Each structure stands twice: as structure tokens, then as C-alpha cells.
């Protein structure tokens, strides 16, 4: 059974927590997150790069965790869906998906939210067209996308209100 797998010492930050692990060279980031760190919010929905369910932020920019080898994440900052809520308080985007029914079966939701999170950090006030572009790499089987766009727009409104309050 099985050849011995080459391993690399991986030092990175996941959701603000420093990690030190030995990961096989051929391990995908999505497997590292789900299997080694038990962060199962990140989903696997296809056999490579097509669905966006595995979207996480690396250095603040959205990437597919299913097309990234874990061992190439040396010294990088990775954020997954689990990082968004603050002491069980949902983030504006999470509230948006809840309020505006942006999630039906919910399988695409973590990836959608992380792609939207990456978009809003770069551009806090995107137009509908820019939201569509920002979420173009994410596929949803259920909602028909309209509700997802409304969810993101809800979050933009909430974030503006919060910004005005402080």
C-alpha cells in the first residue's frame, strides 16, 4: 500500500491562529483545512476550479482552496468562513444571506460569502455589475443568484450604516 508521501513543514496563519503542521506535498489546501484543521465550512463541490464552493481568502484575496497546494501557503494568511462571525454574532454578509434568503441548500454559501467578502474589502461600494463580476467564479444550484446579489447589497447597506455610526 501507498508510497511514502513527501512532506513539508507548513507555517501559516489560519483565521488569525498561527499553525505549524507537516503536510504532504500533494495535499490540497481544502483538504488541509477540512481534514487537518476540522474547518469543514469550506466545501468541495467539483473536481477542480469550476464551482467556487471552496473559496477562501489568501492574503485577503479570494482563491480556490481546491486548486492550491497546502505546502505553497507558507507564511500566508488564510481566512475561511469560520472567521467571519464575531463571538457568534454574524457578520454583515452572513446576516445579509440570512435576511435576504441568499442561502437555500447552503452548499455554495460559504464560498459565495468568502468571494463577496474579498470583493467588499477591495471595493466597499460595488455596483450590481461589479457584484456579478466578483461572484462570477461561484455557482449556485438553487437561488437563481438574484437573492444572492440582494444579500450582498443588504450587507453593503449594513456596513455603511455601521460606518456612519462610528
Amino acid at each position, binding site marked *: 500500500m501507498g508510497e511514502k508521501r513527501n512532506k513539508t513543514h507548513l507555517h501559516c496563519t489560519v483565521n488569525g491562529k498561527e499553525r505549524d503542521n507537516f503536510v504532504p506535498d500533494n495535499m490540497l489546501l481544502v*483538504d488541509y483545512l477540512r481534514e487537518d484543521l476540522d474547518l469543514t465550512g469550506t466545501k468541495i463541490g467539483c*473536481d*477542480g476550479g469550476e464551482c*467556487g464552493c471552496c473559496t477562501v481568502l489568501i492574503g485577503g484575496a479570494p482563491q*480556490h482552496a*481546491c486548486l*492550491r497546494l497546502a*505546502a*505553497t501557503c507558507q507564511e500566508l494568511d488564510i481566512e475561511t468562513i469560520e472567521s467571519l462571525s464575531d463571538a457568534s454574532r454574524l457578520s454583515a454578509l452572513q446576516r445579509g444571506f440570512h435576511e435576504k434568503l441568499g442561502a437555500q441548500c447552503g452548499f455554495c454559501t460559504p464560498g459565495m460569502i468568502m468571494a463577496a467578502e474579498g470583493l467588499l474589502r477591495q471595493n466597499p461600494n460595488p455596483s450590481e455589475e461589479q457584484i456579478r463580476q466578483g461572484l462570477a*467564479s461561484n455557482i449556485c444550484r438553487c437561488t437563481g443568484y438574484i437573492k444572492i446579489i440582494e444579500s450582498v447589497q443588504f450587507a453593503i447597506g449594513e456596513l455603511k450604516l455601521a460606518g456612519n455610526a462610528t
Partner: protein
Amino acid sequence: MEYMPNFQLHRPETPEEAIKLLNEQPEAKLVAGGTDMIVNVRRGIEQPKNLIDLSSINQLKEITESNDGLRIGAGVTLNKVATTALIKKGYPAVAEAASSVAGGTHQQYGTLGGNLCLDTRCLFYNQSEWWRQSNDYCMKERGDVCHVAPGGKRCFAAFSGDVAPAMLVYTAEVELLSSRGIRRIPLAEMYQNDGMNHLTLAPDELVSAVHLPRTLNGTPSRYEKVRIRGSIDFPLAGAAVRLKMNCGKVEDISIALTGVNPFPQIIKGTDEYIGKALNDEGLDILRDSVRKQAKPMKTTTVAPWYRRRVIGALARKLIKELAA
């Protein structure tokens, strides 16, 4: 756990280290953004024993301007190609093509080098292991027959990168690095008409940069493609056009295609239009000449006759827009 073949990963930090590794491991494969290579590894299409990851080579990520023109490193992301003002202004089709690759997330880490060296694609090839196995594989990978042209000895898998045709209309050159040094060749010479082996790169060579000539900086151009889904999809057919008009007459014109041949293709014979006005008749002749030279085969779910018709119409539309 997703299936992954076993391999050793190498992470060079300079182009020289990468070249050294390529010399030590001639069978090794390169990976940059991984948006094509890792998909193929996951599907068992590529089974490298050694994988050389170029993502930590900062030298490959630079964009520099010189008297010569613009030099864009192979490791520059598509997002950066699409949004850099120098490229958007000077070579608009290049930026437009980069912004049409896959979806926004892919563009964040997919690279220019990976896009130019993208493997050719076919309905019978870009499939999961079990799919290909139940079809007895095909000539391009493990099998004996071509399902597109059974009986033939050639593979027609289509080159489907978006950026190459936009680079070709600007007569871009590529810088190739190996232990023998650097050589610079026209991008067009990096390709050949063979779906199984479409790149003319030596096994120990890598692309380090692309050069866009200063002389063509600012000439108007467009890139557009036809695809099944508007959000993410490879081109069923794509066209880049660069056109400079002078007093209603063509001063310079170049057309290049993707998705309709195993290599990105420059349309021949466009020089005949230099000095002429582009009326409807001229546009129709150009359209027909594009249709004649494009050779789409049954490598996508969409029929070749449609791709041939649409590529002509697309090129005509772009020429007309640019001439207006």
C-alpha cells in the same frame, strides 16, 4: 480527501533555481497559479513525480517599461494584466482578454505565463479519470484513438487561452529561459499545429516574460469571445483585432483567433486591406477569410459549423467597431 497522485513539490525562489531543478528532473512539470495544472493533476491527466511551483519567484512578477516597450513577467496575475493602466491604455485587447479569462477569482492568482502555456482542450480529454477510462481514454492521453477524428493520427485539441491572440495582434515576443541562457522569439513561434504537443518550448525551458513593442503602443484593439456561460467559460471561439485607420483608410490591421485550432492563429492576408477603405463588402470578405482559415473540430459540446460561423461574425463585428 480528494484523490491526488503522489509527487514531490519544489519551490524555487529564483528563475535560475527553477532552471536547475528542470535540468535535474527533466520530467518535472511547472505550476504557476495552478488553475489549469492542478485541475489536470486532480483528474489524473497529469501525473508528475516532481512539480516545480513558480509562485514564490518574485522576479517573474514584475512589469517594467523600457524604450523597447513593455515587459510583463510570466508570473504576473491576470488580474494585474487586466487592471494595469499601462496595459489597458497601450494594449487594450490584452487587458480585455485577461479580464475575460475564467472568473474573477481565477484571475486573482492565474498567471500570464500559465495562460500562454495552457494545455490544449478537448471534450474527450478534459474529463475525470472515470469518464476517460469508460471511453478508453484517447490518443492525447494513454489511449490509442482520437474520438474527434477516428482513424486519423493527429490530435485536434483546441488551444483555448484568451490572452495569446491579443498578444499576437501586437506582435508580442516571449523571453525563454534555460541553462543555455535567454532567447527571445516571436510569441507566434512558441506554438505549433499539434494538439498533443502545441508548444515549441524545450523540456528544460520556461517562459520568463512577454514583451509588447513600444511601436504599437496605443493602437486601438479589441478582444471578444463566444462562450456557453457568460460568467466563467473557455472560449468556444475568440478573436482579437488591432486596427489603425487613417483618413478612412486602413493603415494597419491584424486579426488573431483562439479556440478554433490547436494553436492561437494569426489570420493571413490582412495586409491586402492596407490603404483601402472598409466598406460592407470589404468587411464581408474579411469575415469569410476568417471563416476559411479557422478550423474548429468537434472538441467542444458546440458544433464546429457554429464556431466557424460565429468566429467570422465576431471578427467582422470587432473590425467594424474599431473602424467606426
